[in-house]
């Protein structure tokens, strides 16, 4: 569904490229809203939150202080680790990837995700100091 729209915007004259870009983003957003299952939207919300949290901690480390460094590693690492686990979950439960993860049911994927996250948080809080 997104394919033909994208090609139609690309076919427009180059003179109004900025207007074309904005409309491309708008159509991308609309398509995302329309076609993405609500569970994947929930996953994406969490991913965005983790990304912002990680960026905030990284900026604080660079601009203010990296002391204590172990706390930075734990906080930043928890964001990155959680992001990777959540992204994996999203890949495995996405209906479009069902062909690729035939033997992994969504329940199994979530159980993997939950176990991995718990182990991650165990290490993070040990390391946080």
């Amino acid at each position: 569904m997104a394919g033909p729209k994208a090609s139609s915007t690309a076919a427009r004259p180059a003179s109004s490229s900025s207007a074309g870009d904005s409309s491309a983003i708008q159509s991308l957003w609309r398509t995302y809203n329309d076609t993405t299952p609500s569970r994947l939207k929930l996953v994406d919300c969490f991913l965005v939150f983790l990304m912002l949290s990680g960026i905030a901690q990284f900026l604080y480390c660079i601009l203010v202080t990296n002391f204590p460094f172990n706390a930075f590693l734990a906080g930043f690492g928890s964001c990155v680790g959680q992001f990777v686990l959540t992204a994996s979950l999203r890949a495995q439960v996405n209906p479009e990837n069902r062909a690729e993860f035939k033997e992994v049911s969504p329940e199994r994927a979530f159980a993997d995700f939950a176990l991995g996250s718990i182990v991650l948080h165990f290490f993070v809080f040990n390391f946080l100091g």
Partner: protein
Amino acid sequence: MFRIWRVLLLVLSLAILSYARSSTGSSVLVVLDPSLSKDNYSIFFKGLEEQGYELTFRAPKDVAPAIIQDGIASFAHVILFTPETKTYAKDITPQSLVDLLSQNTNVILALGSKQTPLTSLASEFSLILPPPGTPLISHFPERDTPATVIPIPVSSSSPALTSGLAPVWYSGIPFALGNNPLLVPFLNAPAESFAADTTEDSGADALVDAAEKGGEGLWAGKDMSVVTGFQTVDGGRVLFVGGVELFNDEFAKKEVTKGVRSGNAQFAREMAAWTFQESLVLRIDDSAHHKVNETEPRDKYTTNDRIVYTTHISKYNPATNAWEPFSGLTDVQLEFTMLDPHIRTALPPVPSKPGEYSVTFRVPDRHGVFKFVVDYKRKGWTHLHSSTTVPVVPPRHDEYPRFLSAAWPYYVGAISTSAGFVLFSVLWLAGDDRDQRKKKGVKAE
């Protein structure tokens, strides 16, 4: 009646003075050249005997008593008044004198204008002697003595000498000083003096020529020394005097100006006191260290601990023959070293406690085997050295500070991730049924 009083007074003064001794011993060997008479130096020698020294005299060629017997020094101090002696008995060689110094024996050496074994020894102590036969000459100030007999004003820069000493009559050679830091110059030649082989006017042209070339090749000026001490690393002291006449009775009684006696007697006495380790003798009694708010030393310290280092320094008092606490040093330093000094700080005297020096400092943020080092080396004073080894370790795993305010963003980040995970899981599980139902409904349709 008058005689009895005099004897009583003498006994009393002897009783007071007999305690005044060196910190290393009271036996003195005087090696006296046969050409010199003991009686001509009676003021100097009597002064030493009244101080409590036991003088033993011998000629350079006498076999007994030996200065070193079976490798051990026989006397605490040796005076060599042999400026012109070229041959000695077997036991007196430059090497044996160096051996003496390394055994903490003190030596007074009188040099002369002739080439002797002692002049070659002097060059080993960074003294550069002029060519043989060139005594110190000065035509100033105007006086009735020969040009080689010079009154030299005493500069009171050294704490070994009393300030305000009258000028000293001197006759002998000067010497230039090398850059050895162990040398302690006591008496420098006057600025107008120079070393020359003749006092006749016939040699004056050569002197004028040399002076016009900026003093090239001329032994002249106040940078030359005539009395210089040398303190070895082990603490032995040796005094080089360019002319033995400095010590004799004639110069001691001679007037510098009308009515003012020369300072020779007192100068010689104070030089002997320095050389025989009576004056400017220090020692470190003990040193201790502990953490602030504790009293006992620890086996090891942690990085960033605050430590108190305390040391006690004593000075020898020849008047009472005892070591007394000494708080007069203001430039003592403490170093906390691991290869390099990581901390070098002043070690000031504690005002209320005599002889105590103390400083509080923070251990550097570096672990390893450290040393407290007090290394006090000043010209003329005994060298002080104290070294205490102590390990410095990093904090134990439970000694690090926790919940630092700077780390709160990271704590909030980690906690919010966990909370987000819980919230996400709840929403996921809650949304699960609805989604499936929707899917089922879609499928059913």
